[in-house]
């Protein structure tokens, strides 16, 4: 392979960012997300243990499940004793809680926030709306299955789940992290085209970069 072929392949691997206007495409990154492999297995196990002890969640209230986060934060259920703290921005967070139904307008913001989070990142989906649509099963504006748009690690059933169920979900997430099963970020990078295709089928006015670095 000479240099021309390599340039061509690299050009194909870049993202087109077709939703952006012509003069803004240079301002955004056009690289794809890549899979992250750990070098040392034992050191990775230690790091997973440390990650599971300090989960910083994104305080982005999507849907009615956001009301269940407030009793979880305050003194009765007190999630801080489990090492969970809310963060105001996706750049500092590691757990994304999708609380209930996600309309098309919200899923655009969900995708954008999820992509902006730094790895390793985990997703907890609350409520039956994220699983199969729930009571919004025939709504024109609400998605049915969240795992077609972003990878989900733990689902919590209920409409709405109680804060105890949320704590159980967090504990399950911790177990999964310690076992090294939470590979949602790598899954997203591997099946990037499939996820993007699903997202673009419902978000008709795509006016953001293809991957929000």
């Amino acid at each position, binding site marked *: 392979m000479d240099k021309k072929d390599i340039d061509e392949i690299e050009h194909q691997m870049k993202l087109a960012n077709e939703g952006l206007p012509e003069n803004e495409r240079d301002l955004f990154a056009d690289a794809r997300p890549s899979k992250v492999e750990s070098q040392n297995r034992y050191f990775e196990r230690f790091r997973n243990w440390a990650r599971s002890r300090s989960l910083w969640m994104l305080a982005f209230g999507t849907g009615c499940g956001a009301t269940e986060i407030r009793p979880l934060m305050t003194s009765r259920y007190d999630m801080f004793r489990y090492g969970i703290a809310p963060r105001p921005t996706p750049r500092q967070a590691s757990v994304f809680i999708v609380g209930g139904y996600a*309309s*098309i*307008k919200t899923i*655009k913001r969900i995708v954008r926030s999820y992509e902006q989070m730094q790895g390793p990142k985990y997703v907890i989906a609350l409520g039956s709306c994220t*699983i*199969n*649509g729930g009571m919004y*099963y*025939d*709504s*024109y*504006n*609400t*998605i*049915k*299955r969240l795992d*077609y748009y972003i990878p989900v690690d733990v689902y919590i059933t209920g409409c709405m789940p109680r804060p105890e169920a949320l704590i159980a979900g967090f504990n399950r997430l911790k177990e999964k992290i310690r076992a090294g099963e939470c590979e949602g970020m790598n899954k997203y990078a591997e099946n990037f085209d499939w996820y993007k295709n*699903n997202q673009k*089928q*419902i*978000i*008709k*006015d795509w006016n953001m970069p293809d991957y929000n670095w």
Partner: protein
Amino acid sequence: MDQLFNRISRMIKLEGSTKQRDDLYFITVRKEQLELLLSHLKNYEGFTHLAFLQAVDYIENNEFQLTYMLYNYDNRVNLGIKVFIDRDKSEMTSIHKLWPHAWQYQRELHELFGIDFPGSPRVHESFVLEGWEEIPPMRRDFDTKAYTERTFYPRPGRFTKDPKEYMKEKLYGNFAESPEIRKNND
């Protein structure tokens, strides 16, 4: 309220009026006379507050019903004004000059029902549906169930089993069909 209705009916033609409660009345007027009536009610009769503006789709009669709900702070009376407009050529005069906040209701009605309000500010911008390509979703000929199943990847639902058949299959398996069991059952 009878005096008020008398004064109104001297000015415009009332198609009908109903009393729902002591503080809730509805009147039906013609589409062309609505703006005149609303400005009279607002300026002279004390109905200064537009609570909401909503639409109902009567697909059987091929018309939309718009309801303008007004409130009078002096005698605490709600007055709903109903207007019927044609469903195919759905267009209505904008009232954003009487109540400036009406532009928001009109924008929502344009998006969800497809009713046009010429001259209303930002009426053609999308409100909750970004990039919608189908017919407006609150019209009753829009099939929401078919649309969601076409668009949002439905998860396969649960299945049920007949308890008797299921337990027979689970406990005995193929053995249930053997002649010895048949004989004992009979």
